[in-house]
């Protein structure tokens, strides 16, 4: 009896202590935010699972703690860029925080659009939360730092584009036997491009034979959206050994003759392979951006494919949106011989380490309140649930969280892959002209998808056009 009483007493004490700690935290946020209570801060981002979590969950929590209202637009990728850049360029101050995709950070820094968060926090120590620590972020945060190591964006999502496959198909005994009979080797997730192509052909034929809506691969091949260029330049190209979009920044050229590689043999081989997968992709492939690719895979329409990791969690676990829950396998994307070894030696990468951060534009009229908000979303306490919902991890410690360990099993080790193999991937090259040059390349990739240009012609013309644009922008030869 006495022992029971002691245990109850200890539990009660622990609860009270915990509550007082939470209250102390809450008190700090309320006190720090008191001068800004009632202020409304506005932000814009692409509508992605991690951003939607911010809009639906974190914004409300922050408002409840601080009294600062957060109006957060989650819109299309194109609109997000237009709105943010126009606002920052015109200095209108509509947005207090903007989404900075990793690949655009160099353009923003070159234009001095963003507030140095490290410096700003140091100048406003009364707003510095004890729970926020720049050192807690994974090395992905390095992409948002300047040469002095100062941070310009609080990382809010980070993921890699992985190879997903349907375990229910790949582990089906009848299907495995049929594959082995036809190809002479066992069915397995692809480890090289030949195997990938065999898998794609087999499952497309299988879907047709069984009258199923099933195809052999995804292809992010929208002919009306830059997504197709991105899949080629940032996923397929690197897996063949084509790095930095084939642009030699030192030489200021994309043409092989001038030191570039966009029209080289490796690029042509990569594009030829990717285009050869189109007949084995669902019919929506040529209208698919990253969102539609994830939806197609979730609908069970592709046996394997390249899918952005931010979608891995919901595809594998959310039964209300996915028909393949519990059957999703995750692997590294297929690579050409020598590419992984080069990545391990730091001489290349196998795919795109995607992600983004929230930064404060100089044009913001509410920088102090926004600094509090960015620290709030950057504190460890909110990371695990956010990571489970959006398959994104920006804090090193989040990998060890029990919630993530549990989720990791449901997503076939995606989080472990992100932690252990993440260094094989890399962010976009440090171009201050990212969107400008990509816009130039888009039409050539799209015409190659339509079959109007051969891969060699498309890349040759693209490289020439890139060089002209680089010269016009002042970065060329």
């Amino acid at each position, binding site marked *: 009896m006495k022992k029971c009483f002691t245990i109850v007493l200890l539990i009660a004490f622990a609860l009270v202590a915990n509550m007082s700690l939470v209250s102390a935290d809450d008190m700090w946020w309320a006190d720090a935010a008191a001068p800004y209570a009632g202020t409304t801060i506005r932000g814009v981002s692409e509508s992605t699972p991690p951003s939607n979590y911010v809009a639906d969950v974190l914004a409300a929590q922050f408002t409840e703690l601080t009294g600062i209202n957060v109006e957060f637009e989650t819109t299309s990728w*194109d609109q997000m*860029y*237009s709105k943010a*850049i*126009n606002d920052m*360029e015109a200095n209108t101050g509509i947005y207090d925080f903007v989404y900075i995709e990793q690949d655009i950070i160099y*353009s923003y820094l*070159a*234009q001095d659009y963003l507030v140095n968060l490290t410096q700003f926090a140091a100048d406003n120590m009364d707003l510095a939360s004890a729970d926020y620590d720049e050192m807690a972020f994974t090395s992905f945060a390095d992409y948002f730092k300047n040469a002095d190591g100062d941070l310009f964006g609080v990382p809010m999502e980070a993921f890699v584009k992985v190879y997903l496959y349907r375990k229910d198909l790949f582990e089906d005994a009848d299907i495995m036997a049929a594959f082995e009979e036809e190809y002479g080797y066992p069915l397995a997730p692809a480890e090289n491009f030949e195997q990938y192509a065999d898998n794609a052909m087999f499952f497309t034929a299988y879907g047709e034979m069984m009258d199923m*809506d099933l195809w052999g691969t995804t292809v992010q*091949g*929208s*002919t*009306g*959206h*830059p997504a197709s260029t991105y899949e080629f330049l940032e996923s397929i190209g690197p897996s063949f050994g084509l790095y930095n979009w084939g642009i030699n920044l030192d030489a200021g050229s994309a043409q092989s003759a001038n030191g570039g590689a966009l029209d080289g043999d490796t690029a042509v081989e990569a594009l030829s392979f990717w285009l050869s997968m189109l007949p084995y992709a*669902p*019919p*929506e*492939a*040529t*209208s*698919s951006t990253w969102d539609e690719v994830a939806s*197609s895979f979730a609908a069970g*329409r592709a046996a394997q494919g390249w899918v952005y990791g931010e979608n891995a969690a919901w595809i594998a676990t959310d039964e209300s949106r996915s028909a393949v829950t519990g059957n999703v396998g995750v692997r590294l994307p297929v690579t050409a011989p020598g590419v992984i070894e080069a990545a391990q030696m730091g001489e290349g990468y196998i795919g795109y380490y995607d992600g983004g951060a929230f930064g404060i534009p100089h044009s913001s009229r509410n920088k102090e309140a926004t600094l509090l908000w960015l620290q709030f979303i950057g504190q460890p306490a909110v990371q695990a649930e956010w990571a489970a919902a959006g398959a994104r991890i920006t804090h090193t410690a989040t990998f060890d969280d029990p919630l993530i360990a549990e989720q990791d099993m449901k997503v076939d080790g995606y989080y472990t892959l992100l932690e252990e193999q993440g260094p094989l991937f890399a962010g976009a090259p440090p171009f*201050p*002209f990212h*969107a*400008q040059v*990509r*816009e*130039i390349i888009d*039409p050539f990739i*799209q*015409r190659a*998808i*339509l079959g*109007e240009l051969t891969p060699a012609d498309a890349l040759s013309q693209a490289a020439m056009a890139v060089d002209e644009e680089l010269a*016009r*922008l*002042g*970065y060329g030869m």
Partner: protein
Amino acid sequence: MRNPRVGWALLSPTLIILLIFGFAPFLYVLFVGFNQWNVFSADDGLVFNGLDNFRRLVFDDDFLHSVGLTARFAIFAIGSEVVLGFVLAQMLTRDFPGKSLFRIIHTFPLMVAPIAVGAIWRLLVIPGFGPVPFFLDRYFDLTYQIGSYPDQALMTSVLMDIWHWTPFVTLTMLAGLSSIPREPVEQAKVDGANRLQVFWYVTLPFLRPVLLTTVFIRIMDAIRTVDEVWMLAGGGPGTRFTGIYIWRVVFPRTDYGYGSSISLITLYLTIVLCWLLFIAISGRRKGEVE
């Protein structure tokens, strides 16, 4: 005697608004059009470059292609809308069961925002999920993929525009038909004219001002079409019209100088086109006065 100052005073709010929101931005675009200005270039300021932007666009295959596509889009869409609109307006001049209901349903697309029209049509035609490709494939063995076939994307854009804007043409035609006096029509019939002759020699001349205005408005709309088509196909091959091309140059490419020059040329082409059409339809010659 009327005081002209009162008239100017009453007009002044409108004139001021027009000056601020219409004329001033136009002058700004005119100014920027003669400069090189890309905020992400190594030298991100405005650099006067004379007629270079205009020289560049003459040799810009993508721009010329977009003009050709826009012309095809405008011809197919407006031509169909005028014919359909006239037929429907004729129908609505007569009584038939369910006429009121038909008129409401027929006018419904006009009330839908262009971006929503684009979304509706995208959901209808998106390969793999949309009902249109599904049924065309199942019952007619036809492959319908707007992402893979530029002609299909163009014709889908035309159909979408017809669906959206034919009611507008119908309503203007109906107003025109309602205003035609009965006497000339009856006189022509008494004189032995058949229905085609009545239409050609009586109805059409009376309709000419309405027709002219309607076609002008639709041409200007067609040339600046962006949102519907953007939503439908993202401005990919087959739908990269001039408006979408301008958007791409000005926003993602942030090439403000070149984008402004294309905008100016597009405005110029629109004015010239409308003037030529005005002469063709109205039959006016140099020096003629109404």
